[in-house]
């Protein structure tokens, strides 16, 4: 049996522990059982999502994206290589993020989208920056294989919301350079941003239409 190690992070559906596997530093993501949920449904969701997440990480890796290497997949656990570096969210908070990093974060998303992977939660909290400015993407818990321009546009939107205009330009440059259909996604993004539902949900300005 592998040592579970120390708790590193806790999300709504999983806990992440630091551990070692076959002699290297690793992390293990364990999907938790939910006591509120019907037991068969719970078992099904946990195992299907674990399998799907591991599979998508493999596809991302094959597409040349910088993601942790999947080392071992168990029923509810994914063991993966440990990425050390700074959280992009932290660098943004301190305002010390470089243009190279921003561009890399766009390049990486472009590589994912080229492989028809929508990340589902592409925010600076899920990007680790190495000392050489390279960006690594983590947490594929909400990722899906899809050709949907909408899903891809939402990945870009989440990132755009976390960046200022100049930072977004650097990010978008990287994205355009690594994904040939970037133009379609960005024009879809403009539509998503203009859409009423997202307007009321994110900006919540104005008065309602009169009936």
């Amino acid at each position: 049996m592998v040592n579970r190690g120390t708790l590193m992070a806790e999300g709504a559906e999983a806990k992440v522990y630091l551990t070692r596997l076959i002699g290297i530093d690793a992390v293990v993501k364990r999907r938790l059982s939910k006591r509120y949920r019907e037991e068969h449904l719970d078992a099904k969701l946990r195992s299907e999502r674990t399998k799907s997440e591991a599979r998508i990480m493999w596809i991302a890796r094959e597409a040349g994206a910088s993601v942790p290497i999947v080392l071992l997949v168990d029923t509810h656990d994914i063991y993966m290589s440990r990425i050390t570096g700074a959280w992009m969210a932290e660098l943004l908070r301190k305002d010390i993020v470089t243009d190279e990093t921003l561009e890399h974060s766009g390049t990486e998303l472009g590589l994912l989208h080229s492989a028809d992977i929508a990340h589902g939660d592409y925010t600076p909290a899920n990007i680790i920056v190495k000392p050489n400015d390279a960006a690594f993407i983590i947490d594929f818990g909400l990722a899906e294989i899809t050709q949907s321009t909408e899903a891809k546009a939402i990945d870009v939107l989440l990132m755009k919301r976390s960046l200022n205009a100049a930072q977004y330009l650097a990010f978008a440059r990287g994205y355009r350079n690594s994904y040939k259909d970037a133009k379609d996604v960005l024009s879809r993004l403009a539509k998503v941003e203009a859409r009423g539902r997202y307007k009321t949900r994110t900006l919540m300005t104005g008065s309602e239409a009169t009936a």
Partner: protein
Amino acid sequence: MAVLGIESSAHTFGAGVVERGGILSNSKIMYKIRSEGMVPMKVADFHVRNARKVIEDAISKAGIDSGDIEAVGYTKGPGLGPCLRIGQISAKTIARRLGVPLFPVNHCIGHIEITRQSFGMEDPLVLYVSGGNSQILALDEHPFRHFKVYGETLDIGIGNMLDNFARAAGLVPAWGSKVAEVAGGGGYLQMPYTVKGMDFAFTGILTHAIKMLETANLKDVAYSLQETAFGMVCEATERALMLSGKAELLACGGVAQSSRLKEMLGIIAESHGARFAAAPNEFNADNGAMIAVVAEKALRSGSRQEPPIINQKSRPDTVRITW
């Protein structure tokens, strides 16, 4: 001095009177749903016939005189247009005759506020689940104080989904509570499961469940449908609870009457150290008192007067919470 509230967004015509937050009366009458579901014009006709009786009953039960009414609230939406119109006209008429201010009230905010008030919750994460609506909300101060929507249904309300299934399965009455009744002792069958972040969708699972009725037995389908749909809503709620960091969880709306859903939400709240409460059934059902509660808060906090409109798609996150 008291405030009168009128609710007519769907099958219920209700009138309630409150005074300083205390509920003096809460009268209502409900249109009996037959096999075809709700036909908006028929329900509106029913409301027309009963409006006067229900309002008079609320005023007399409150033990007040019409001269004691200092403001009138009505449901502006969301809801069925023809039904909303009856409540609006009744409220306008009374307010004009008494010469008192009129407050259009968002139906969802009514459910949330009467429940929040009765449990003394300051800042809960709210799961509002009813026939037409299914949303996860919490107070947010930016850009103004309002209930921010964390997640919601991308298609139909969960109650509507359960009612539709009940109708297809020939259950009488065709309601979600009847689905819960026949689900007892059922076994689990695979169902589509749709959660996207903190949003969810129900048309896929509804279509699937109706098709399954041809081959599987009703008990198992009903059980699986209910467990899966509640599981979806609960997963999104748990995610929102963690993200928002709120210490209170509140359930309201017609579907919050389900004991199984309350049990599941209770477990979630407990595992995050949050306090959980669900509205009493009297307030989960549509009612006039909740509209009066919001109208009174609006009056006392000096909300600006809105045009007396109805809006079938009125969203709770556009309402300024001035209290």
